[in-house]
């Protein structure tokens, strides 16, 4: 095959554009996260013993598990900290289950995975206190989150057995980490999309609705019009029918 003279130039040009673009795309999610060498080494041992069979001995991914290079400490802290990892069984979606490691061990594994390549870091405490603007957080939640997680975070169904979990009882740290890393089928909400302040406001909103009773009384699981309609049909109409029968019956 004869090479055209400008082909080499084009390849170099494309390579430069792509690597530059890739760098630009990566920079806005990268935060510095460095553990002490001892912590990283401790994390590497735990990783080899508990994670490497699926994720590869260097976190490069293997059959059954994706690569962990560049997923960041936040991803490890979320996945292991909510018990989703180490994964158990196969199915449409891995579920939260009792956590199998201490926070110290989780932090060590997070530090090890963060040392492989830069990625989203564990969020600062200042964004997790829930002292932001709940109204703004509520608006952002309804635009970005409510279609899957329900307007008050009660969760909802996705396709083919997958589901968006209920958000009640999830710690602010895990909520933040889920937004920034996009676990399983959840999309990523990086800091350009929802700034750390926006995420703080969303966490404030979730905390507010968790701490305050529903102003409308019975929530019926907050799962929407089907549950509410069923309740009204069975109890409301049932009551009316019972009264009608009693009105029409003769006294004995």
């Amino acid at each position, binding site marked *: 095959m004869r090479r055209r003279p400008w082909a080499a130039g084009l390849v170099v040009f494309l390579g430069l554009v792509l690597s530059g673009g890739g760098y630009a795309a990566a920079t806005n*999610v990268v935060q510095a996260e460095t553990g002490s060498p001892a912590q990283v080494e401790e994390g590497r041992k735990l990783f080899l013993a508990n994670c490497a069979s699926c994720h590869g001995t260097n976190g490069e991914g293997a059959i059954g598990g994706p690569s962990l290079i560049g997923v960041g400490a936040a991803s490890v802290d979320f996945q292991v900290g909510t018990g989703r990892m180490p994964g158990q069984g196969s199915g449409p979606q891995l579920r939260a289950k009792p956590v199998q490691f201490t926070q110290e061990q989780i932090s060590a594994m997070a530090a090890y995975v963060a040392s492989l390549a830069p990625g989203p870091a564990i969020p600062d405490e200042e964004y997790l206190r829930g002292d932001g603007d709940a109204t703004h957080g509520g608006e952002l939640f309804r*635009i*970005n989150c409510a*279609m899957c997680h329900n307007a008050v975070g009660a969760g909802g169904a996705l*396709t083919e057995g997958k589901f968006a979990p209920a958000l009640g009882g999830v710690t602010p740290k895990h909520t933040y980490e889920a937004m920034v890393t996009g676990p399983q*089928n959840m999309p990523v909400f990086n800091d350009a*999309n929802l700034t750390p302040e926006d995420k703080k406001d969303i966490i404030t909103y979730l905390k507010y609705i968790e701490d305050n009773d529903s102003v409308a*009384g019975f929530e019926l699981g907050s799962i929407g019009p089907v549950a509410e309609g069923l309740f009204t049909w069975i109890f409301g109409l049932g009551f009316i029918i019972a009264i009608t029968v009693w009105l029409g019956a003769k*006294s*004995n």
Partner: protein
Amino acid sequence: MSDIEKSYSPGLATDIEKPIANPGIEPHRIRMTDKSEKHARTAEKQIAVMFGVSVVGAIIAIWGFFAFPIVDGDLAATRNNSLWMGLGMALSMFGIGFGAVHWAKTLMPDNEVSEMRHQARSSDETRAQALEIVKLADGESGFSRRKLIRRSMYGALAFFPIPAIIIFGDLGPVVGDTLKHTMWKPGTRLTKDPTGIPIKASDVTIGSVFHVIPEGLSEMEEHKLEEKAKAAVLLVRVNPSDLNEDPAKADWSYQGIVAYSKICTHVGCPVALYEQHTHHLLCPCHQSTFDLANHCEVVFGPASRPLPQLPIAVDAEGYLIAQSDFLEPVGPSFWDIRK
């Protein structure tokens, strides 16, 4: 003709010679309260208890009003106030109602009465009188005699409703081609909902979902929601190798960033449940599922068309812009959609 066919005559299946007998009124059953004074006494007490419950309900309502004062800005306080007042007043009303009905059923006279049905036609005498009045009025007004007045009046009555018909015909806006166009124009920047901050291509990392409105929408004063309902867009970046793009539309995306209308082609719900790994977009209303990696074709559910794609590009400053409006109508199909 067989014997069976001969034995039936066509026509009515009812035998009018032998109508169903009138079952009459059920035999009267004497109530226990009529038979024994003891039962009547019990019923009396029951009614009094029901009226007593009504008083308790009224007291609960008053208590609720004072025990849960409405605090400005505290919605939960309003809820408790309304809840206890409502329950109390309902109990109060039901108490009176149940008491009154129970009283009528157990203690008031229990006579059964049947009323005969009368003919609806008036007597000949009344009919003749009515005719007399009409003739008298006709004679005195000259309605039959004065043809000019009668006919001009018919004309006036016929023309009178025409303005109303014309006004009704003009109700509501003329739809025109508004169903086929949105706010997107060549060069319109893609901005974040609700802030209107423009989005750079480098902001959209793989797996990201942005809820997008056209530049300028967030500052609109009038018709904002109408425009948003047509122009809302979901912006997603997928690994370019996962995208199965139509060669004719290959330049509609930018390095794996694709923009699709967020309005379901079934009945117009916002489709925004994006699954990062399957690239499925699910509509929460009727479970229509679109495959984002495959031109948003329908893979499940009642939607009949793929979601329209918004052709995007990047401007000199790196911001995402629309190449043009959608090239097909967004949202539910309508009867002349292809025109």
